[in-house]
């Protein structure tokens, strides 16, 4: 971190206007009761990077945007949690079942679930994201149409499930059967794509805290997903965000739900191991 600190000091001396760009030291407590870990020591697997502290994207947003996540009445993402709850209780498909038929209330059955995905699914013999698990239930247990991978319905259900783990540490496994997928995800994270030849790491590892035009670069963490963005006034899923970032390198994107994005999600999630689950969070 030495060079980064020196650069920051130099930048402050030269251009006082830019001193604000560093992530702030505010603390995030939701509804006056859920204390979020938004900064913590980087997980061991990141020891080959110079990132020693991992930080939620919350730290990189303006005070106004930050405050929207501190109370559920101000958090527009919570509206979608309610819609998600209606979906949860609605019987659909050939089996005439709802999520509730098998899982009861989300409070009973979904606590801690968000924190460990993506994870190994032994039956399917592959790494599974939360979205894949939801669609797996819809197909095999409800005989219902799968949700679109980045659809509003999927985002709503993900928000309902995430909220049951708010404040719990992200704890994604990276060894054992998932290790190959994790390695693939890591490779994708560092691959410079498109005509601008930029990797995730160029922006979110080498330059977090810096401004890129009007945007304050964060570490690109996904502990806050799904994310309510003020920019498009809706809930956004992880793979939709990945797609946008890859597109911005002037590259051919991967498809949401593709093996590449599943691997990338596992890897990026693991870079947030130890941060609190924040979904649904609020960003600009």
């Amino acid at each position, binding site marked *: 971190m030495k060079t980064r600190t020196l650069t920051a000091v130099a930048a402050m001396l030269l251009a006082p206007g830019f001193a604000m760009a560093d992530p702030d030291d505010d603390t995030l407590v939701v509804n006056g009761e859920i204390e979020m870990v938004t900064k913590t020591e980087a997980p061991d697997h990141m020891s080959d990077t110079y990132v020693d502290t991992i930080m939620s994207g919350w730290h990189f947003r303006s005070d106004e945007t930050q405050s929207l996540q501190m109370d559920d009445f101000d958090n527009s993402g919570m509206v979608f949690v309610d819609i998600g709850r209606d979906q949860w209780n609605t019987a659909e498909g050939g089996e005439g079942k709802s999520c509730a038929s098998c899982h009861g209330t989300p409070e009973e059955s979904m606590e801690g679930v968000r924190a460990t995905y993506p994870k190994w699914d032994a039956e399917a013999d592959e790494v599974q994201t939360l979205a894949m698990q939801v669609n797996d239930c819809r197909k095999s247990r409800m005989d219902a149409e799968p949700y679109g991978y980045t659809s509003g319905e999927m985002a709503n259900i993900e928000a309902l499930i995430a909220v049951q783990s708010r404040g719990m540490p992200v704890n994604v496994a990276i060894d054992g059967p998932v290790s190959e997928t994790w390695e693939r995800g890591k490779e994708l994270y560092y691959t410079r*794509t*498109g*005509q601008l030849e*930029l990797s995730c790491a160029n922006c979110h590892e080498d330059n977090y805290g*810096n401004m890129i*035009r009007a945007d304050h670069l964060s570490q690109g963490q996904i502990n806050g997903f799904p994310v309510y963005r003020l920019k498009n006034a809706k809930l956004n899923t992880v793979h939709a965000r990945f797609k946008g970032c890859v597109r911005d390198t002037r590259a*051919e*994107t991967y498809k949401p739900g593709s093996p590449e994005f599943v691997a990338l999600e596992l890897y990026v999630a693991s870079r947030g191991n130890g941060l609190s689950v924040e979904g649904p969070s609020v960003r600009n």
Partner: protein
Amino acid sequence: MKPLITTALAVLATSAAATAGEVAPKDVTFGEYGAVEQSLTGKPGDPENGALVMKTKSVGNCISCHEVSALKDAPFHGEIGPILDGAGDRWSEAQLRGLLVNAKKTFPGTMMPAYYKVDGYVRPGDAFTGKAAEEPLPPLLTAQQVEDVVAFLSTQKEQ
């Protein structure tokens, strides 16, 4: 209809290859440290247009990464690369041209994109559509735009 046809032909000519008298992206020769001695157009660049290229998001978008005091009429200058004030003192015209054409020849591994390069990409896309595109891609800047930016940066002197 004649003017229309002429324009159409001109467009074809630029997209197919560099216009006559220009050095095509694949024919650029770099010095040992990444400088490009030969002008891409053979004519002096226009510094005013260079400034415009640097500020405009859909064109050079240089200020997304660099702060440039002389371009402060455009908002939101980034902090990824060095401040470019005084670039004309630090770099010769040939070095600036090399930085624009392909900065990786000067700074291996740099984050700065290559503005006059057409192939060798991983998953090249069709601009910002997210769709695949076939190489060779059109370069990010035309030969003339590169020369215009070089001309502008050469005017950036602190002493």
